């Protein structure tokens, strides 16, 4: 029996930055090119987010025509897909050759959605044409729950408060 053989499909995620010098209307084209690279090596694309314009936390350097160029903004997108290690190597090669890609990262991940920030309306990632939702919503919910807990639990005891807390957490997660 071959122990190195993997029967379970491996799920990967490619996060990539496109250089900000690309005009906005060409972005779908570029992300399509990245998608094309993945389609060559992958059986299935699980989910993806098209590149959005973001401010970077620090300037990222890229050598353009033998000169260092600093970028403080970029278009950031990601694609989750099923693949195999050999495919990843070829994907990385083609990503390196692409001059429009500022930086990329391939990580192993899970098939299900791992992003939890979206459940909470607090995500500050800049999305084009979309206002950042209010960050105070989770806190509001918490204070409401705290009120509920206050009303119901104080005369009864700590066992109920635990149950209420669990409920509150579930509500927040849902």
């Amino acid at each position, binding site marked *: 029996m071959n122990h190195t053989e993997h029967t379970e499909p491996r799920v990967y995620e490619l*996060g990539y*930055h496109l250089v900000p010098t690309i005009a906005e209307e060409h972005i779908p084209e570029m992300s399509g090119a990245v998608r094309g690279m993945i389609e060559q090596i992958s059986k299935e694309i699980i989910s993806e987010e098209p590149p959005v314009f*973001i401010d*970077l*936390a*620090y300037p*990222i350097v890229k050598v353009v025509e033998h000169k260092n160029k600093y970028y403080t903004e*970029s278009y*950031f997108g*990601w694609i989750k897909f099923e693949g195999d290690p050999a495919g990843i190597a070829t994907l990385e090669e083609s990503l390196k050759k692409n001059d429009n890609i500022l*930086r990329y*990262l391939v*990580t192993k*991940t*899970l098939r*299900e959605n*791992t*992003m*939890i*920030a979206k459940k*909470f309306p*607090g*995500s*500050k*990632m800049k999305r084009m044409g979309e206002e950042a939702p209010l960050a105070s919503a989770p806190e509001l919910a918490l204070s409401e729950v705290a009120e509920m807990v206050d009303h119901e639990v104080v005369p009864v005891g700590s066992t109920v408060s635990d149950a209420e807390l669990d409920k509150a*957490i579930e509500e*927040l*997660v849902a």
Partner: protein
Amino acid sequence: MNKNKQCYFSANNIKLIDYKDVEIIKKFLNPHARMIAGKRTGVCSKHQRQLANAVKRSRFMGLLPYVAQ
């Protein structure tokens, strides 16, 4: 800093900490963008290790700073 009874990630049944979840990760960083000890935040060892990986990936991808004032 308030001490949580249970780990935030275990309590919310989070299987994998995503490096793109900047808002969540930021809760576990101090104003200098350094990680806060799991002992202070109540994060369990398993998730603290995952969090460390997520922070490193996030920094590499320019979503979080390496240093901040």
